[in-house]
Structures are given as C-alpha cells and as structure tokens.
C-alpha cells in the first residue's frame, strides 16, 4: 500500500496542479503534496518496516501477461526516500524563482516524481518500462519550456538519446519475456530465465545502453553537460540527484541479476569505459569556467565510479554504491542549491566574474565548504563512507583481474576532484570581491534552513552510516546471489 501511495499521491496532485490558477496556491499545493509523500515514505520506513507493506499487486494488462506489481527492497526504499526527501528541498530552494505558467511547471515536476517512484518500485518489466518513460516525458517538457537560451535543441538531444536507449531496452525486455515460462514480465521470472551466455552477450548491450545514457557513462554522456546547464535549476536537480539513480538502479536490479554471465564477461569493458569517463570528465571539469558545467562534469566522474563499483560485483562495493547513490543525491542537490543561489544573486555562474563571496555571504560559504568536502569525499562526510567501501570492494573484487589498475586510475578522479572543487571554492568564495560581488548579501533564513537539512544529512550519514548500511545488507546479498557467475557457469 505504501508503494502505491508513493506513486498515486504525486500523480494525482500533479494532475490537480494543472488546473490550479493562482500562483501562491500552486506552490503551496505542490509543497504540501511533496511533504505528504515524504511523510508516507518515512512512515513506510519507520512504522511498517516489513517488506510486505511495500508490496502491491493488481491485474493490469492481462492480455500481455503483465501485472501492476510493486515492491520495495532495501534499494527501492532508499531511492524512494531520496526522491521523497529531495522534492520538498527542491521546491523550497526554488521557492522564489518565477515561472511562466507555474501550474504546468509544478504539475510536470510532480508527474516526474510519480514516474521515478514507479521506476524504483516496479517489479514487472513492462511496468518498469512504463514508468521509465513516464519519468522522462515531463522532464523533457520542463527542460524545453523553462530552460535557458539553447534549451530546445539541447533537451531534444537528451530526449532522443534516452528514447533510443529505452527503446533498445524494450526490445531486450520483450526478448527475455518471450523466453520466460508463460511469456511473463514478472521480475522473478526474469531472474529465472537462465539465458544462454551467447544470448546474454548481446542482450546485455540493449539494457546497458539504456542505463548508461541515463547515468551517464562515458561515451554516452554527451547530452549531459549541456542539458544540466540549460535546464531550469529545479529540472537539473531532478535530473542529477534522482534520474541518474534510475540508471544505477537499473544496473543493479535489471542487469546484473538477469544477465549475470554477460555482466561478468563484459564487466571489464564497461569498467574501462567507466574509468575513462572518470578521468576524462575530471580533466574537463578542471578547465571549466562555468559552475554549472563544472558540477555537471564532476557528476559524470562520480557516476563513473559507481558504475565501476557495480561491475566489481563485490559485497563491499555494492554496499558502497548503494550508500553513495543516496549520498550523491544529497550532495549534488546541495551543490545545485548553492549554484542556484549564486545565479540568482549575481546573475551569472561564470567563475571568472565572481570572487570573494565569503566576505559578503559567510553562511553561504560555510555551507558550501561542507558540501564541497562531501563532494571530494573527506572523512566524516557521507561520500567518504561510500567511496571508501567502493574502492575497498573494487580492490578485493573476485570477478576482475584488473582491480589494482582500475582503482589506481579511478583514484586519479578523487585527486582531480579535490583540485577542481577546491579551485571553484577559491575562485568563487575567497579572494577579493569585485564590482559584481561587492553588493552581495547573505542567504535568507529559509535558504539556510534548507541547506542545513542537506548539511545535516551529510554529517549524520558521514558519522553514523550503520543503519543505512544495515538496510542494504539483504539487497546486496540477493544481487550477488543472483549474479554469482562462477556458480552459474558450473551449472551451464
């Protein structure tokens, strides 16, 4: 029931939002809906912690052997929680941003939320595909209508990239379903297909491309920096904090367990792509002058590391990935908030035009420093736990022989990450003020409050990650069990 509510509340309230006329009402209504969703998610985690309360199954497309089947495992619940938490933060942090046709904007945002919740909870492949697209379409409209100057072309590129990816995935889904008993789309049926290694080999790419575009993994990332730069900041937040996780989750739930042999045999190829992406994106980030593009490229590097860890197929690496999915969502949300505040205050995100903001806005600088530390995974911040476990897992991974070179190259990403993040801090916040930043003021109370939530989450998870890690125990075990290649190879 919880699962159903998490989808229904934003869906219905999103549809209602389209009909509301007055601006104030639209904002209040959307925020209320986001908060209710958040409360439902908390209740789901706290009060009803048995997995059964997250399951829901109903007849849907009987003709196609597909059912409306939802379920929550550690990963799904965590991602729903992240989505539910992010939305109020996003709405609050963009509270004063003016939008044309505001009802459409918030309506689409809520529809996207419903779509993402569905993606995280779907336990039926066709339903998963439905929600996958439901999440994409509103974001396409959000970015194209409310974005920057080059928004139409840029968003269109993003749309076509992801659409090609998802269509290929659809072919894969159809193929696997035709191999299951009774042409089912159920996730357990998918897990038990036992496809021949040769079939898995090419099916792997049908799925991987869809997920890789969404994440994005090098070389499928070319849409990302432009889109992040052009999209309205709320859209960018949704894209980078949440939609990216759809790709990582896809790998963990739909790729590794369904096509274990192929994941094993293509693992090194994909890992190489991921590592290339890490170094490549970090190097480009170093040279950026625009804060938005810098954050966008840094995100490619972070996601690359997650991809690398996923294909290490090691318990520590998987738990690291899961916790990093949550942490990255929070950190990047904070990063975008700071960028948004700066853009609103000074009308630019070009680092060369800024400087010395810390003198005028000490609170903003304070929050920035903590979020930046989290971004470079300093101890006591949330990202440290994730990255440490991921690196640990990659090193001790049993499925790749290249653990050390992969780790060493990926490690460059951390060093470069520190360089560009601190460099951004130095150029934007420290040094002398100029004519533009001279007139800057500090952030308002409610901005402080929202940033405090983010920083609080960063520190709490950084200091005491145990409960979160504990909740990932079962799911990472189960992913590893389904994708235990050595066992499967013996069976074949």
């Amino acid at each position, binding site marked *: 029931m919880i699962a159903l509510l998490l989808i229904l509340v934003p869906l219905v309230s999103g549809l209602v939002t389209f009909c509301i006329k007055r601006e104030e009402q639209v904002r209040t209504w959307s925020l209320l809906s986001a908060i209710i969703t958040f409360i439902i998610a908390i209740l789901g985690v706290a009060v009803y912690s048995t997995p059964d309360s997250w399951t829901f199954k109903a007849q849907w497309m009987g003709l*196609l052997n597909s059912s409306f089947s939802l379920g929550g495992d550690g990963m799904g619940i965590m991602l729903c929680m992240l989505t539910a938490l992010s939305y109020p933060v996003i709405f609050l942090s963009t509270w004063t941003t003016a939008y044309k046709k505001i009802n459409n904007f918030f309506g689409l945002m809520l529809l996207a939320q419903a779509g993402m919740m569905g993606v995280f909870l779907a336990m039926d492949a066709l339903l998963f595909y439905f929600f996958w697209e439901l999440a994409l379409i509103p974001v396409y409209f959000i970015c194209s209508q409310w974005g920057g100057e080059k928004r*139409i072309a840029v968003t*269109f590129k993003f749309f076509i990239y992801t659409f090609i990816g998802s*269509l290929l995935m659809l*072919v894969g889904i159809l193929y696997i379903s035709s191999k299951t008993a009774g042409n089912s789309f159920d996730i357990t049926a998918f897990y038990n297909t036992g496809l021949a290694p040769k079939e898995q080999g090419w099916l792997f790419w049908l799925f991987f491309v869809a997920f890789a575009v969404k994440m994005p993994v090098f070389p499928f990332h070319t849409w990302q920096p432009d889109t992040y730069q052009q999209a309205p900041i709320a859209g960018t937040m949704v894209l980078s904090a949440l939609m990216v996780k759809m790709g990582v989750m896809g790998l963990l739930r739909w790729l590794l367990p369904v096509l274990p042999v192929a994941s094993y045999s293509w693992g090194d190829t994909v890992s190489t792509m991921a590592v290339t992406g890490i170094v490549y994106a970090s190097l480009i980030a170093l040279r950026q002058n625009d804060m938005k593009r810098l954050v966008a490229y840094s995100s490619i590097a972070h996601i690359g590391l997650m991809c690398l860890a996923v294909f290490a197929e090691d318990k520590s690496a998987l738990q690291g990935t899961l916790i990093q999915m949550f942490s990255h969502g929070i950190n990047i949300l904070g990063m975008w908030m700071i960028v948004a505040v700066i853009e609103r205050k000074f009308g630019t995100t070009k680092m060369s035009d800024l400087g010395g903001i810390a003198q005028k806005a000490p609170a903003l600088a304070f929050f920035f420093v903590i979020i930046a530390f989290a971004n470079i995974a300093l101890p006591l911040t949330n990202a440290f736990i994730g990255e440490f476990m991921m690196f640990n897992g990659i090193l001790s991974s049993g499925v790749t022989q290249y653990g050390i070179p992969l780790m060493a190259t990926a490690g460059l990403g951390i060093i470069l990450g520190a360089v560009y993040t601190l460099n951004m801090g130095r150029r934007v916040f420290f040094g002398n003020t100029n004519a533009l930043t001279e007139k800057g003021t500090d952030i308002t109370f409610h901005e402080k409050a929202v940033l405090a939530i983010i920083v609080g989450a960063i520190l709490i998870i950084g200091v005491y990650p145990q409960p979160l890690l504990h909740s990932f125990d079962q799911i990472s075990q189960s992913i590893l069990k389904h994708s235990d290649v050595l066992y499967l190879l013996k069976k074949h």
Partner: protein
Amino acid sequence: MNAVIISGLLGVVMMFTSFLSKTKAPVRVLAIAGAILLLIANVLESKGVHFFSINTSGFMAFNSYSLFFNSIAIFATLVFFLISSKDMQKVGDHYAEYFALLFFILSGIFLVTSFTSLLILFIGIEIISIPLYILTGSAKKDLKSNEAALKYFLMGSFSTGIMLMGIALIYGATGTFDIEKMNLAQLMKSHLLTAGMLMLLFSMCFKVSIAPFHFWTPDVYDGAPNVFTSFMATIVKVGIFIGFIHLFYTAFNQLTLQWKVWMAVLAALTLFIGNITAVFQQSVKRMLAYSSISQAGFMLFALVAMNETSYEGLLIYSLAYCLATIGVFGVVSKMTDYSFDGFNGLAKHHPLVALCVTIYMLSLAGIPMTAGFLAKFYMLKAVIQSGGYLWLVIFGVLMAAVSAYYYFRVIQAMYFKDGPDNFTGISSFEKGVLIAICILVVLIGLFPNIVFSYLYF
C-alpha cells in the same frame, strides 16, 4: 454481410440527398446517422444477428476477426465524420456525393477484409480505389489536386493491372480462386504460382504504399484535399492491410515462410525511406504522408511475424493509428499554414487543441501510456515471438526513435516557440470530439483489456 449491403445502400441514399436537400446540415446529419446505423448493424452481426441471409460461401467469410476490424473501420469513419465533415464543405459543391463515395469505399473495405475468393479481393480493391481517385481530384479548381488525381489514377490502374495478371496466373497454377481451397503445398515450386504471388504482392504493396512502391504517396496525400487524405491514410490503408495479412496468412502461409526474409527487407526499407524522408519535410502534411509510409512499415511486421500475436496486433495497430492520425488531420485541416512554423505558438492560443495534438503525436511516436505504444509493442513482440529477425526489431526501434524526431518537432513548435495564430477555430462540439479521441488513446494505452474484452475476446 449486414455492413456490406447497408454501406452500399447508404452510398446510394447519400447520392440522392443532394437533390432533396438544398442545405448541407441535413446531409451531414444523415451521414453521421448512417455511420452509427452501420456500426450497430455490424456489432449486431458479430453477435449473431444477420439482417440478410445470402450464401457467400466460396466468396466471403465473415469471422469474428474481420467483423471486429470492420467495427474499427466504421468507428474510425464515424470519428472522421464527426471531426472533419464540416471541412468537406470547403472542398467543393458536391457535398453529398463525397459521403456517398466514402460509404462505397467502406463497403469495398468490408469486401477486402472478408474475401475468400481472389475475385472478391480484386473487386473490393477496385471499389475502394475508384472513389479514391475521384476524391483525390475533388478540389476541381486546384491544379495540385488534379495532378494528384491523375498520378494516382495512372499508377493505381497500373497496379490493378498487375494484380489482375497475378490473380490470373495463380488461377492458372491452382485452378481455383478460393484461397481456402488452394493446395499450395504441392505447388510450391510452380513458377506460375510464384510469378502470380509476386505480382499480387507488388500490387498490394502499392496500395498500402510500401517502399519501393510508395512514390505516389506523398504527392497524392499532399495534393488531395486534407479531409480525404486523412481518410485515405488511415481507414483505407489499414483496411487493405487486413486484406493483405488475410491473404498471406490464409492462402500463402507456407510460401510466405520462405519469403519472410523479403518481407523483412521490405519492412526495413519502408521504415527507412518513410522515416528518413519525413525528417526533411517542411510541411506537416507531407511529414504525415511520409510518416504514414513508416507506419505501414511497422504494420508490415505483422506479415513478417505471421502468428497469432501479429494477427491481433494489427487490430490494435489499426485502431491506434486511425484514431491518432484522424485527430491530427482534423487539426491540420483547420490550419491556414501547413508548415511546421505554422504550428508555432499553438499552445498559447489554443492550449486544449495543442494538448490533443501532443497526445496524438506521442501516440504516433509510440510513447508508453498511449495506444500507439501498445500497437508498436504488439508488432515488436510478434516478430520476437516468431523467432529470428532480431535485426529487424532493433532496426524498427531505431527508426521509431527517428520518428520521434519529426513528431516532436510539432510539439516543439506548439509549446516552445512563438508565432501568430494560424488556427481557424473549431466548434465546441469538434473540440469535444478531439478530447474524446485523446481520452480513448490514453485509455487504450493504459487498459487495452477494457476495449478488447468487450468487443472481441
């Protein structure tokens, strides 16, 4: 049989109404009432109520499949009447005659969907084609329309000749016109039969504009008055497709197995040419013409797959494609500027109409939650189930992504660009029909069961 005879009679009745009524409104009302009557008669027939007891054995067989498709065709025609019948006034003075011709075409379609004798197929195709030639040239003072009609007529007659030749050769090889009695298994290697089948295939491909027999399509669709293009591109096309699959599924099933690869090549070629050319169009109307070619490529998947799923899938495809395309044309024909730029800012001036067009476009592009997705899904599933031809499936989805490019161009124009109002307005009734189509498109996309369990399964 109900539908064939009643639609023929309705055609005759409509011819006379132009003498009896000076104004146009009664004609329109009569036509719409006729379509409703036809729908009721056909649904009753599928429930076992026959108004006429005519022995058609050896010529036609009405099974639940063909009856269900006929219902779809009549329903689509009804929607077409509701949304476009006023626009037919703009074409010329012979308002009632247009309806008469449309009813004749419908009765031709019923013949084509239910034939068992090749002769009936031929007659049906001709009953469809000749009124179409006339309708294409119905804007008599428009040179483009005249040219289109002439082109269509010449090419059409040529293909009819080929079809007749093919039927003659098949008759020579098998000694019968009855597709159920042909014993093809023994004749597999007969050159006469092969030649005959090829000719039949080519002419059918021409009628549904499969590449490389599609050259007439853009010119004819562009030249013909908008309202009739809408009818031609949807109801007529899918009607002949049903005949097409019926022919190959029943008569040439074993032969087709060997030919499958060629069917697949034709499908791929059609998708490629239709989609790539559509990308470069500047006029929405021409884009729709090429997109209809590409949609035919997807429908051809049914002939590649040749299984239950494809047989049923074609019904869903027909319904989804007809609804969305009729809706789009209903809007396009009320525009003063057919180019993509003509759609600029439509969302600002007419938000509801723009929303409807968006949903149609999403459906045509095959986005989930619309009927169009389900249609494409069925076709892909059918081919995958038949085993093999994965290259075609992957090629198909890549082409679907290309099609998203031009369908979304319309959405972009409507929502993200500004421009003057080129929409000539729409009555609130027509607006209601547009919205009803939208609801239907989404409803079928979300719950296909509610439609299909009531009607067919």
